[in-house]
């Protein structure tokens, strides 16, 4: 008899919490009239899933990303990361969840120009509790994973767009987060670099990483196994 049997669960999904879960989460910005950027939404993303959120400009994609990345709080409802409720959590606790569970990839890369590629990747380990003695090795491994071993000591300013985004991906995964949030990851890349980054995402997904990609490009969205469309703040699962 297994633990699941004891709990009377049908399968593991009933007891293992989703990596990210919105429960009626909404975001309203005050004003006259107030703006409902995200209407009450339910969303579950389980470990190992590759989900894309697609929608046009102004549809609420960024609002959703900010909530999912714990950069903002829902006006109502709850948001759980690995089963941890975060909507009412303190700033320190949310920062800890962000550091240990979430990795970010931004459209504009957001690398620190004065730091080397290695130092940029190393940055994320500072806050996620990686011991000081392991940080450099972990960063080098992450850069090896994205094929940038030959660029460790370069400044981001001399890298191509594709290399910068791969550096950003290495930085996002170096702390082994539970979910990778990517905001328009190919928005600033040419088609060749875009393809390389998407290929990298496929590989990370194949390795078991949970990915949530927000994009306005249908072809990027199509790479995911699950797709959600956001329109005027309403989430709708696509077939």
């Amino acid at each position: 008899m297994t633990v699941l049997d004891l709990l009377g669960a049908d399968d593991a999904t009933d007891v293992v919490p989703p990596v990210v879960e919105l429960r009626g989460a909404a975001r309203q910005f005050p004003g006259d009239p107030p703006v409902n950027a995200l209407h009450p939404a339910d969303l579950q993303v389980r470990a190992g899933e590759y989900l894309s959120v697609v929608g046009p400009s102004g549809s609420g994609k960024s609002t959703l990303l900010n909530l999912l990345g714990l950069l903002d709080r829902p006006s109502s409802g709850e948001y759980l990361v690995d089963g941890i409720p975060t909507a009412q959590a303190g700033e320190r606790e949310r920062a800890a969840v962000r550091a240990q569970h979430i990795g970010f990839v931004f459209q504009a890369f957001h690398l620190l120009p004065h730091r080397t590629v290695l130092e940029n990747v190393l940055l994320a380990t500072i806050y996620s509790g990686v011991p000081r003695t392991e940080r450099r090795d972990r960063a080098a491994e992450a850069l090896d994973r994205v094929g940038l071993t030959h660029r460790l000591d370069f400044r981001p300013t001399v890298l191509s767009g594709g290399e910068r985004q791969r550096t950003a991906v290495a930085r996002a995964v170096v702390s082994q987060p539970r979910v990778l949030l990517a905001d328009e990851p190919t928005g600033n890349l040419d088609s060749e670099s875009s393809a390389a980054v998407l290929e990298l995402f496929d590989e990370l997904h194949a390795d078991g990483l949970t990915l949530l990609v927000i994009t306005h490009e249908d072809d990027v969205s199509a790479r995911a196994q699950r797709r959600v469309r956001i329109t005027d703040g309403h989430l709708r699962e696509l077939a």
Partner: protein
Amino acid sequence: MTGLVGAVVEAWDELRLHKMRVLLALIGVAAAVTAITAVTAAVEMLAQGFTEQDERFNGRQVTLSVDAWATSPDVQADTAALDATYATALERYGITYASRDMYTQVPFRFPGGTRPTETRAVDPDLGVMQRIGVTEGRWFTDADLQTFAPVVVVNEVFLESLGVSGLASRPTVLLGDASPVRATIVGVTPRMWQGEGPSVFVLYDQLARWYTPADPEWGPTVPSLKVWVPPEAADDLAPRLQRDVVAALPGWEVQINDNRSMGSSGLDGAARWVALGVGAFALFLGGLGLVNIALVTVRHRIREIGIRRSFGATSGRIFFGVLMESVVATVVAGVVGVVLAVAVVKNIPVDFLFGGGIQDMPPFPVSAAAVGMVCATAVGALAGLLPATVAVRVKVIDAIRY
């Protein structure tokens, strides 16, 4: 502790990356720390100069002076008994430094004729007790007490009046009028003020041996006794000395004076605070410059702060990080400032500037360096507060959209 070390390391790393910014921000702070440290050190050295100057006139702390004077012109002084009393007292109370001291006029023969000259009859210890320095030759030693012919230490004016340019020719001078004795000049004291007349130091016993003054108009005189004693013993010793001397000089008035109330300590008070005030104001101005540059820098680093926050940096960590950058920077500036101050103070002729004659030049005071470092750290912390507060208020969402 690990967090603090980590924050310091991170702060140092940031500063290393932004050398030019740091350099610009810290020039003013380093200069102000140099000023405040150098002034603090200079004031301490100046205080030493003033202390020594006081000690030349009044003796080292605490010098007790046993003065006796005849209550009428008819009383006599048994100087032999007095000397014996002095000797017994010194031995009984374990006094290491003591000197008889008598101001008198003694005739010396100059090229223009014999003329009475201001003379001080003393013992060799007075040289240490009153920091009597010589520009040439030497002060008296105990060996001089054994010489038959007198030796004298004269001032520069005396030597000039004698028509002698230095001690190389082993100059001598005739002491006394009716039957003078030839005294050897062994040392020359510096000229202390303009218009100073010739003066001489002579060993008390030698003067007593070779010269008997005419009866003074104001009655008999005896030498004072000066003793240099530890401050804690002075109060206890004074009445005992007085009692002993009274017993040896019946009919004489005996008074004990000590030099604790003499001299000035004004330099330790007002002058020091004025100097520190000027330095503090300079540091304040340097700190303002630092705040200005730090604020501009934080505004340029808004995106970086947002990125750090998105990867899990707490607002407290951001605040502490920015604050520590300022503190570490000013500590570095403080070290530079203190090193510069040491270099300046060690390489300027402080002794000359203070009028010369400082015998025990104090080492660069650690307290001055400590004051400089404390000021640097404090100004770094204060200057870091504002930019750290601005950094914490950065909205992550806005920062990464910036």
